[in-house]
């Protein structure tokens, strides 16, 4: 059974249930028990929102995406075979939903300013845990600028490369865990990660493309 746990514990502990409670909850959800569905939603909502938030880097349409994840989950619970923990399975749905969102965003440019406005509103409401620690406006602005630069560079990668890099660098997952989440194998993920990192740091530092250096050779058909 695959149970994805970040290498460094996340600020917000992953919502997990013991195996027995989880199985019972899944069964009740499959029977369309409303109370069970609500229990599942309230248990995992913050984890789902946090995964989507970190994957996309902004809260535009975050509420819609959280809704989409849970609707997919409730509709697909019948096919859930229990080969992974429920939290991991939900994580996998988050990855797919985020990938869909990234692809849509690449086709349809985002409205200018929406992200900033919402981020400001969220910061003002003290919504993030980081905002609970005393932080000077300058420090917050620096942090925000740095995060924006990272996500701007991520935006320029292809969706698959971006997702693999995000899962490895930001979520701290290893190749096997990433492979499960993106429905691939570890070797493919390793190759994709190599090119994602190379491209990402080139974009970030604004350096010209360089001659291929040492590292895994791209397989035929690799991204």
């Amino acid at each position, binding site marked *: 059974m695959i149970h994805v746990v*970040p290498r*460094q514990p*996340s*600020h*917000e502990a992953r919502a997990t249930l013991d195996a027995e409670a989880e199985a019972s909850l899944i069964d009740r959800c499959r029977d369309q028990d*409303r*109370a069970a*569905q*609500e229990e599942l*939603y*309230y248990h995992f*909502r*913050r*984890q789902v*929102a*946090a995964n*989507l*938030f*970190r994957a996309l880097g902004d*809260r535009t349409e*975050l*509420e819609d995406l*959280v*809704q989409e994840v849970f609707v997919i989950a*409730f509709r697909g619970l019948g096919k859930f075979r229990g080969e992974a923990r429920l939290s991991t399975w939900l994580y996998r749905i988050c990855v797919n939903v985020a990938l869909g969102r990234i692809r849509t965003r690449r086709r349809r440019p985002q409205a200018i300013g929406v992200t900033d406005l919402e981020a400001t509103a*969220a910061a003002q*409401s*003290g*919504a*993030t*845990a*980081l905002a*609970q*620690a*005393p932080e*000077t*406006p*300058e*420090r917050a602005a*620096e*942090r925000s600028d*740095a*995060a924006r*630069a*990272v996500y701007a*560079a991520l935006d320029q990668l292809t969706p698959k490369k971006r997702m693999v890099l995000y899962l490895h*660098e*930001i*979520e*701290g997952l290893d190749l096997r865990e990433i492979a499960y989440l993106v429905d691939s194998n570890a070797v493919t993920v390793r190759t994709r990660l190599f090119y994602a*990192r*190379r491209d*990402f*740091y*080139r974009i*970030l*530092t604004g*350096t010209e493309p*360089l001659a291929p*250096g040492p590292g895994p050779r791209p397989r035929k058909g690799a991204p």
Partner: protein
Amino acid sequence: MKHVPPHRWIDAAEARLSTRRVDEMNAHAETCARCQNARAQALAARATMTELRSEVAPELAWDEIRAKIRWELSPAGSSSARLAAPPEDSGARWGLAGALAAAVAVAAVVAGGDLPAPRRMTLALAAARPTPAVVEEPGAAAPAPAPTALVALVTRARGAVQVDGEGGLEELFARRLPAGAVLASGEGLLDVQLGPGTALTLGPRSSARLARLDSAAVELYVDGSLELEVAPRAAGQRFLVHAGAQTVEVRGTRFRVEHREDQTYVSCRHGLVAVREGARSVEVPAGRAVSVRTGQPMPAPSELSAAELLELAVTTPYQVAWDDVSTVAGSTSRLELTAAPARRLRLDGVELGAGAATVRVARGRHLVEASDGGGPFRRVGWAVVDARAAVRFEAGAAEPARSQAASQRREQLRALLDRSRLARCVRPIAKQGLGATYVDVELAVGRDGTVSFLNITDTDLPAELAECVRTVVASVRFAAGPAATIVEHLAL
């Protein structure tokens, strides 16, 4: 040596390269500005990504999302979703459907009949329906359906309040309020939700009667103060507030009505309200207010001050996600929040005002925050509501107020501190990808603004950088004012 590919600096930082290779890269960077710059940027980005790992989700409208999920999963929601969003690859099928529709229309015209009227979809207030119901508006010839009776629920109570003469919290939150219910308040506030997105707050020393409450119209009679938030009405739906001789009609807005004796004051935060008295009427747009005296000419609306607008924003009626009344009543519980009278509370990001309050909440975890003396909201804890029984949460006593003199001097320090110089002090370590450092300083400011002592009490900076910060703090020139000793935490 060629330039170093930027990602190699990350490999070096993660010890994936040989020492010899790293030495070569560093030696090259010593003489190459481009590679030095790339190294700094790459390492800083790596540090940022590690920091992002601890980023948590922002607070969202959890109950609203829950209601939408329920709607999506309901049979009506599923069919509506299919109707609203045809699959992208179904062009051929939709083309066929379009051709069929055109053929039917042509046949109708050829037969001499009228084309079928376009079917308009409108959102109606839900009563016995399981979700925000989508109903088809009947054609002009069809008889109008009888309006469906609605019921309201209490969502927040504070202080002395009553519904139909009953004042116990358990009774208030258990009741479903039909048309005819009478709300009254002493020194307290009462919030009642009438449907999705529609709620009212009865102010202190006020009373209101829900004269009519159905899918066609909502009518209220008020004596005293009433805050209202009204979701946009569907065609044919009316929302009326009778305040003495005046009647206020809205389509969808956020406004306040205050009626005392023969005077009615109506202020509007957004939307548009119409105030009528007999044949005379005046429209009050967003950001304006009007004060009408019975029998007197209607004055033109005046602009609201910033303070009044702020007050309107803060006193928004408290609402819960609403699909149908049975589900709301069955899936919510009473949460009693206790706090010092001056302590402002916030629940899941929604301000509840100062002091203790009892609110209706969905089952689950709810974030409780508190603010003292106009300061920022800080997390008090999580209120876990997992049963239908009421839950009590102690939001604590107010923190002791800091001396006014110290607060004043602290504010001056924050305003006068040269942040750009502070940032320059820590730039050397920021370039190494290190951040989130701090310096705690203690200083005494005299009446004439002189600083008699300035100490660094704690820091995680190297001594020379801490000294740089101290110099910046020492350069602050305070104005004359009260003497105070302050301790300030400078996060850098």
